[in-house]
């Protein structure tokens, strides 16, 4: 995973709530067996409309998505995170994310930032009034900065440490091999097995 310390970029204001993962990446894209090449599927249905915010020329190259509440609801598809990253987004800001989406994003180094809806409103207003306005998301300081806006955000220390260092969860867990083996040795015999060991 790529480390995330801070990112500055222009924003895409997505004034919609409840953007579910079927909107982020429709199911027919899920047939691919790789982690890349999902950029054209991102918000595919909405992108048919030339007025959709992502299609506007002034949003080209923007890397900060500012979304409405309950972003990423629905399916567990990690493809939603890959699609956002493949397209070029580094961070997504919303007042509320669906749990699984949030977990997936942090595991892939896409920083999801939770801010109060008032701050999201202010970021929307700013990005709409001035498409060239830049937003900085600073993970070290846990702060979002933009013209006239300074907002602190929370992220638990462990997740932050993993992101800052780009650490791979699996190797970290495997350092606890002794604990896992001890737990396994004590599991009751009545627990289900899919095949006879």
């Amino acid at each position, binding site marked *: 995973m790529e480390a995330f310390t801070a990112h500055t970029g222009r924003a895409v204001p997505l004034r919609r709530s409840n953007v579910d993962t079927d909107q982020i990446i429709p199911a027919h894209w899920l047939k691919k*067996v790789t982690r890349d090449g999902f950029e054209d599927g991102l918000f595919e249905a909405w992108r048919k409309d030339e007025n959709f915010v992502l299609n506007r020329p002034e949003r080209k190259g923007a890397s900060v998505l500012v979304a409405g509440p309950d972003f990423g609801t629905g399916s567990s598809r990690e493809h939603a995170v890959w699609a956002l990253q493949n397209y070029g987004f580094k961070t997504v800001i919303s007042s509320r994310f669906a749990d699984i989406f949030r977990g997936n994003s942090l595991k892939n180094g896409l920083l999801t930032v939770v801010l109060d809806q008032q701050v999201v409103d202010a970021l929307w207003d700013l990005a709409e009034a001035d498409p060239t306005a830049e937003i900085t998301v600073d993970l070290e300081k846990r702060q979002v900065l933009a013209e006239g806006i300074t907002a602190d955000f929370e992220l638990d220390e462990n997740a932050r440490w993993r992101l800052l260092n780009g650490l791979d969860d699996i190797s970290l867990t495997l350092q606890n091999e002794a604990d896992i083996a001890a737990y396994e040795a004590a599991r009751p015999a009545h627990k*289900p097995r899919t095949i006879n060991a």
Partner: protein
Amino acid sequence: MGRTLAEKVWDDHVVRRAEGEPDLLYIDLHLLHEVTSPQAFDGLRQAGRPVRRLDLTIATEDHNTPTLDIDKPIADPVSRAQLETLRKNCAEFGVRLHPLGDIEQGVVHVVGPQLGLTQPGTTVVCGDSHTSTHGAFGALAFGIGTSQVEHVLATQTLPLARPKTMAITIDGELPDSVTAKDLILAIITRIGTGGGQGYILEYRGSAIEKLSMEARMTICNMSIEAGARAGMIAPDQTTFDYLQGRDHAPQGSDWDAAVAYWKTLRTDDDAVFDAEVVIEAAELAPFVTWGTNPGQGAPLSANVPDPASYEDASERNAAEKALEYMGLTAGQPLREINVDTVFVGSCTNGRIEDLRNAAAILDGRKVADGVRMLVVPGSVRVALQAVEEGLDKVFTAAGAEWRHAGCSMCLGMNPDQLAPGERSASTSNRNFEGRQGKGGRTHLVSPQVAAATAVLGHLASPADLSDVRTPAGV
């Protein structure tokens, strides 16, 4: 202080707990399917890691599989490649797989319980959000992303922060025509699609205790639609009876030990939930959705709501967008909405009891002209049971299509899809834009409402049917 059911199961699976870190949780059962696993197996391969516990891992094919002509090669090359990738990965790593054509094949959340693998007090994960289904057994079951699938394959554990707990208590008797599906749709409309966020829900109360395992699975299945991490129901005699004798249920002294443990899996009287919701069963009625998320629902007797009636600006905006997408107008009676497709199936309502309920209504009746009805059993086992009971004949005699097991029209990944602008009454769990096919419009309903809707051609409950049954034998 006492503990809740969720806390007990959680505590029993903590491998490692350290200050400032998420708990490392042991996973008892890992279910795989073709869509969310390929990149995880790739990760293992790149790192040179094996699957740690093949005996706690099982795979099936469901999302991409066609429900017709299953003996022929799959027409869509991309779907075919994904299924072949799963087969190749399972063979290479040694994972037990039930592919298309196998007697244990079916929707992953139907297969786990019917094999007896889903048991009380276990932790169950799958790269699929509707893993919450398995919570009906008093298991802690939740959907995970592909990175976590890889993590579980490699370590059989997951680092997780413990969610909060919410009690949803439903006391009293459900009225006659009201099913588990109506109940969960009403709950989601009440608490909203984000209402369960950060929580494990525990459904409890006398109305829940009376439900069958199938009905409990329907409820837990849709916990994720309320944003919850998982949904659970305390195991009881109904649970034990369902499990006893199944392929992977414990046997002999293991069974006794298991039941003794399972009986401890109840929320203690003095346990405290972080949030509580109380619902009176007697006040519920058949429930349908009118919008594009599962929280946009209403009793069937209601009208399409007026977006202007929402105080919250983002809800108002969402309702406006939903009505536009759904092609509905505010104030229109829900009962007057015509559909062209009816889908009975999915991991929400594709089990034997669901098929029986739909068949009981269709028996001696006909699907309305111009309506296409698909009945898709959740697994091959469900299909065989239905055939044994003659349900398939009831469906085909009524003019419905009886299909092979799979996810089918629940999501637009296989050939069963809505065309743009087509409208369905569907027993599945998501009415998102385009979920059942690009431009398709979905109303979520119970199997009973689905069957009545098929007969009348508009959203309807069985009570609306009183005079259209052809007398038996005619």
